């Protein structure tokens, strides 16, 4: 997931390293660092904004490391889902237990259905649906689309997925 943090550092040499090292140690991937040296706080600290990608279970460890070394964490904003996918389904979507279809996707834990737009023109005619799926990364997005294709075979639905170059990792 992607994490955005507002931190405050003491205005003495070597403080930025106290932020970067734990991110690196826990195999995070740094996206941006903005060091606002000119916006010194009334407390005499320097605001720093960092954005990095990290496995969800490592975030608490990183925050503990920051606190141990005197880096104050002002706010943490996590964005768990980085990838958004669109898939179209055609067939008897509702009558083949739509709840079950959604549950199976959500149960993966790494992706979930966030929007469903359903068009049912006539009774007994196949319905069409547009599904929006959020996933932690492209690999998980691909996995959940594969899962949906498997479910679709069982339920005789047609899955229209994005072209390969859109899903390429």
């Amino acid at each position, binding site marked *: 997931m992607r994490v955005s943090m507002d931190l405050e550092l003491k205005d003495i040499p070597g403080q930025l390293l106290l932020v970067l090292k734990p991110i690196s140690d826990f195999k995070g991937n740094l996206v941006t660092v903005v060091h606002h040296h000119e916006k010194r706080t009334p407390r005499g600290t320097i605001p720093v904004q960092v954005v990095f990608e990290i496995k969800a279970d490592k975030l608490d460890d990183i925050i503990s490391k920051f606190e141990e070394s005197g880096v104050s964490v002002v706010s943490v904003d996590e964005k768990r889902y980085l990838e958004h996918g*669109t*898939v*179209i389904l*055609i*067939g008897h979507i509702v009558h083949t237990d739509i709840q079950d279809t959604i549950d199976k996707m959500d149960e993966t834990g790494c992706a979930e259905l966030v929007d469903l*737009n359903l*068009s049912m*023109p006539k009774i007994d005619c*196949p*319905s*069409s*649906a*547009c599904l929006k799926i959020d996933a932690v990364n492209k690999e998980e997005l691909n996995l959940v689309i594969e899962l949906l294709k498997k479910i679709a075979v069982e339920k005789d639905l*047609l899955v*229209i*997925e*994005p*072209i*390969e*170059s*859109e899903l390429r990792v």
Partner: protein
Amino acid sequence: MKTIRTSIIGFGAVGQGVAKVILSKNEYLNNMGIDLRVVAIADSKTAVIDENGLDLSAVLARKLEQGSVGSENIGGTEIIKTVEHDLVVEITPTNINDGGVGLGNMIAAFEKGMDVVTSNKGPLALKYCELEEMAKNSGSQFKFEATVGGAMPIINLASETLAGNKILSMEGILNGTCNYILCRMMEENAPYDQMVAEAQELGIAETDPIYDVEGIDTACKLVILANAIFGMNATYKDVSVTGITKITPEALLLAQNNGYDIKLIGEVNGSKINVSPKLVPKDNPLAVGGTLNVASLQTDISGPITITGRGAGSIETASAILSDIISIYKD
């Protein structure tokens, strides 16, 4: 000047297109040092032979007026076996079940060490490796650019122009009929059946459109690309195929509202050969309209290369045949 004696086996729309293109490009060919002399033409019932070279305008006129090319009662395979010539332009109707007469014609040509240029997909989709092997053993040239994407030069692009690149994957639209039907369904918010009927009326779809709309035609072309570009040993049964018959206007509208077109996409990726309707972002180069074909090759050093062009039509297909002929005989 190099004299190339050639036969045209099959004289439907594409065969006549080839004759017209040879006529109109005669001077161009001469300037390249090629004297292309058509010594025999066969349609499904009749044939005409002249070892000194046929008058193509006269044959075209006769075909138009009388529906046949000549009065000789000799089949295409017989011509290949008995008339002395160098090149067979094999354009009989494609047959995906057993390769049809085209397969026999190609084998007969290779047995005699003749070169073959073809637009006939069936034999290649079924017996690509065997045919390549036969051509190699007999020292024959075997060219089939016209089998995939009509005027769009995808095979020669990958094998010659992009030399030095490894082609990693390919995806594209290889059937103009399906593309037309899907585009029109989206434009008119009309059901599938209605737009198939329109396509049939315009001559874009066949009376029996199953070969196109079920993805079979695209699958055959993918088999040829998988073998010719990716060096796979694939046949039709290795392709997973889903056609466009189940697509609804509602699905197209939902896709459109989210910035996508639905297109019948063929792809070769790793060992996977697949035909199915897919979502193509409207700003993607694959989102071409009408009956156009398009293919995007993912290469290791050049990145993605995309080409688009007319995938069908007699003159367009004939242009691919002409380019194959020139590539064999130019110095």
